[in-house]
């Protein structure tokens, strides 16, 4: 029986015509709070539940609503406008669907989706809770809860475990529990951790929560996170990231949630993606894949372009062209005297007597500090592509025209776009339409049927199956996934040769 409309949905009709499955790499559950809170109580005791509800970073109670306009002005970025409502309500069936796994499961055919990987909603925030006890307890409770409620539906739905990572040890512990013990197959890590600035926290401990720096887990981290990536490899899980940055930096207006929301997943994705690359994680762990969810792919192509330009002009072979030690001072002075008139001629000697700024004439640097591409092992443009393109996967909602950039871009690369329906959240007003929206790119002639197959099937399979060949074992898509993983990837190696075709 179908719980929804009896007419086949547009998504179902499209799926019926395809010769490959459709995999949703990023759907959402909307946690049923009374049940989750009971799990939280079981894990941490009744006191933890009340504390979880009361703390501002759990998402259970927004402080903004409790403040007067004047108080918001006084608290500014600490009182950013949160979202109004995140989930479908008018479509009551849709609301219930992502709250109840069985209903979600029953409606999968309506959605034209064979298999879905289910991210949390309020659980997205759990790895970012600053209170260690609440963070660890909440993540454990979410993982127990989701492992339990999705257990009967594993042939078509798999929930994502939330992994706290304020220290490598807490990440390792939760990976062992969620993946090792509960056999969860997909994980979500925080894209960054806010940490107190030590020198300031010592002076003003009560301000430590506000005077923070952003730890991207890879470059200049407070800890060595390699054991975490190694554990992911050992447990065969691909780290994924889906971190909210509403309320961070410029995304902290008091009155406009849209301002705060637009581009926020891309902002966190860029932080961790750049850090994984520059910090050399993709070099040291070449068998891992990483996914960045719900941000589209345009930011990644833009980032790749930025890396490409930066490497081309600021690689170690070119840096010494900027070194002030290599300035021909005599020639510079001569030009100042001949062409600069009195303004330059009479003053140029002062440059060498202390008037030159660090910004313009620089300071001596150690050679060891200058090759910023060394940790990533990037010596050529090909190295950059190898460290970036095959390892990173980008969650794209269906309606985004710029998804096309994954397949047609100025770099001649095919970036790994993966379809993420966002079912359960406010971007999807009718869950039956999500997969159909993605197909519109084909209908509009923007991507080919083969590109679409990559988006909704091959890339999601490679993301998870590339790290864990058994990821899809026992699922509805097992045979198709196995066949895909066994076959060599079409066009492999050809990317390198491709020019800059638009």
């Amino acid at each position, binding site marked *: 029986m179908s719980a929804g409309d009896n007419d086949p949905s547009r998504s179902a009709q499209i799926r019926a015509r395809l010769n490959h499955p459709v995999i949703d790499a990023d759907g959402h559950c909307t946690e049923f*709070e009374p049940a989750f809170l009971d799990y939280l109580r079981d894990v941490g005791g009744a006191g933890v539940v009340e504390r979880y509800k009361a703390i501002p970073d759990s*998402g259970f109670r*927004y402080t903004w609503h409790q403040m007067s306009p004047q108080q918001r002005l006084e*608290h500014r970025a*600490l009182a950013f406008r949160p979202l109004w409502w*995140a989930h*479908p*309500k*008018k479509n*009551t069936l849709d609301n219930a669907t992502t*709250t*109840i796994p069985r*209903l979600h499961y029953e409606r999968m055919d309506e959605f034209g989706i064979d298999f879905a990987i289910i991210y949390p*909603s*309020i659980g997205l925030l759990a790895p970012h809770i600053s209170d260690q006890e609440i963070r660890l307890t909440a993540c454990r409770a979410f993982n127990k809860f989701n492992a339990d409620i999705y257990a009967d539906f594993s042939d078509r739905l798999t929930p994502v475990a939330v992994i706290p990572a304020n220290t490598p040890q807490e990440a390792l512990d939760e990976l062992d529990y969620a993946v090792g013990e509960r056999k969860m197959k997909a994980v979500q890590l925080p894209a960054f951790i806010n940490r107190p600035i030590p020198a300031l926290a010592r002076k*003003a401990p009560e301000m430590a929560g506000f*005077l923070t720096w952003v730890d991207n887990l890879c470059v*200049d981290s407070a800890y060595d996170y390699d054991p975490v990536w190694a554990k992911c490899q050992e447990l065969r899980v691909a780290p994924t990231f889906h971190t909210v940055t509403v309320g961070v*930096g*410029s995304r902290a207006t008091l*009155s406009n*949630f849209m*301002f705060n929301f*637009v*581009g926020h997943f*891309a*902002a966190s994705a860029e*932080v961790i993606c750049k850090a994984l690359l520059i910090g050399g994680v993709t070099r040291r762990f070449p068998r891992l894949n990483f996914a960045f969810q719900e941000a589209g792919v345009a*930011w990644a*192509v833009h980032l790749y*372009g930025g890396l*490409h*330009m*930066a490497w081309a*002009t600021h690689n170690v072979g070119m*840096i010494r*062209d*900027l*070194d002030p030690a290599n*300035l021909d001072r005599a020639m510079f002075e001569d030009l*100042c005297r001949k*062409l*600069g008139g009195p*303004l*330059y001629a009479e003053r140029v000697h002062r*440059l060498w007597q202390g008037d030159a*700024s660090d*910004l*313009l*004439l*620089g300071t001596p640097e150690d050679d060891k500090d200058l090759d*910023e*591409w060394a940790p990533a092992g990037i010596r050529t443009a090909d190295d950059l592509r190898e460290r970036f393109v095959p390892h990173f996967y980008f969650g794209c909602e269906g309606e985004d*025209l710029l998804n096309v950039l994954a397949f047609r871009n100025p770099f001649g690369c095919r970036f790994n776009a993966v379809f993420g329906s966002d079912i359960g959240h*406010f*971007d999807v007003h009718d869950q039956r339409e999500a997969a159909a929206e993605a197909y519109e790119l084909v209908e509009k002639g*923007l991507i080919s049927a083969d590109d679409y197959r990559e988006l909704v099937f091959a890339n999601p399979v490679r993301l998870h199956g590339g790290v864990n060949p058994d990821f899809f074992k026992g699922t509805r898509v097992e045979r198709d996934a196995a066949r895909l993983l066994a076959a060599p990837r079409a066009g492999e190696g050809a990317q390198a040769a491709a020019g*800059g*075709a*638009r």
Partner: protein
Amino acid sequence: MSTAEARMTKSAAIRARLKHPIIDSDGHIAEFEPAFFDYLKEAGGARLVERFKAMDGPYRFGWYTLTPEERLRTRKPRPGWWLHPTRNALDRAASSMPRLLHRRLDQMGLDFTIIYPSIGMFALHLGDEEMRRAACRAFNSLQADIFREYADRMTPVATVPMHTPQEAIEELEHVVKTLRLKAVLMPAFVRRPIPALAEEHPQASRWAFWLDTFGIDSAYDYDPVWAKCLELRVAPSFHSPTAGMGMRASLSNSMYNHIGHFAASNEAVCKSLILGGVTRRFPNLRFAFLEGGVGWACTLLGELVGHWEKHNLEALANVDPASLDREEIGRLLREYGGDYGSERIERWERERSHLLWGGPEERANLDEWARAGIVRKEDIRELFVPKFYFGCEGDDRMTALAFDTKKNAFGARLNAIYSSDLGHWDLPNMCDAAAEAWELVERELLSEDDFRDFVFANAVRAKTAVNPDFFKGTIVEGAVNSLLANA
């Protein structure tokens, strides 16, 4: 530089083949510090010069004075090693001396260039009011003096501080009316103390601040500034570094901090201008966002459209908890969610989180598009596409996206403007300026018509829409007049 030498560069050869000028919308001067300090002394006294030199900033980066342990303790971000090409002393001198730069423009294949500061960009963001205003004043006076003779091919940009509308208006009046400058640079944001924290810990404001982007929830009403820009016929432009801020604050890797940092500040102020309704209230103004490329802008336009479609006022009914059919949800929970148990289903009303169900909302707060005057999707196009210009470096292949009508929302062509970055590290050899940009045509990423828009027509429109006389008296005046006459 002789004409014969100029012809020897690839850039010059490319320029010679074109039927239109090449306008560089974003070159840089490497300020000649001894002269700047003398101007600063004149603007603020010798004491101010010493204070400027003592600050942790572009004159002396504090990072270099710290041990690795101290950097860890203070989480001091790594500054760029060296910003300017120096092995090529001719380029280094040209970036400091307008006369030499003027002589070499033909070698670079450039007809006209708009010159942004280097140290001056930091001056806009100084928290100390006396220092900020004096430094901006000194930069502006210096620039006006040293570029005056070369106005036929170069114009310097004035730095306009924005901590209050009043200081912006005063500097605008000064630079346009007294110094006769015609291009202006404003900060993309101002860091402001969080009152609730600053009362008890004034020093904390250096690290814990909020960002005022002028359009939304600003501490001040900046409309008088935009009105003054219109009155004085100057188009605001933005070029604020964010390396070292927020998520770009590595201790050891300046590339990590640098990549994407201009795009980040550009996105913030651009979004603020449109959602705050500035482009609606000042439809005749044009705004430029420099050195961040255009990829971020194509994404932003697409996202604004996507979010408007899903989250306009009418569409919010889809997510309003009041729209939920409580009887039906109860039925579905009992039928499909029996595992949750009836006791929990009963508790649900009492245990709903704000994240999943929202807090109490007033209808007046819900239309977040109202300030911008967006009531239909197409309004976004009108308020965004013609108003904004995006500075793209010559080697940035993503510039192609500006002209890609298949991928951009509304099939729009965004206004990419060529920005050489001459004087800075992104252009290692000034003579490659035009040639580097032309490679976009050689790679078939841009058509020749696109290229003309990129290096000429868009740059002209960006300035003349606000000041039709911007190019009067320059060597491109004739070409500009023809372009505008045929528009």
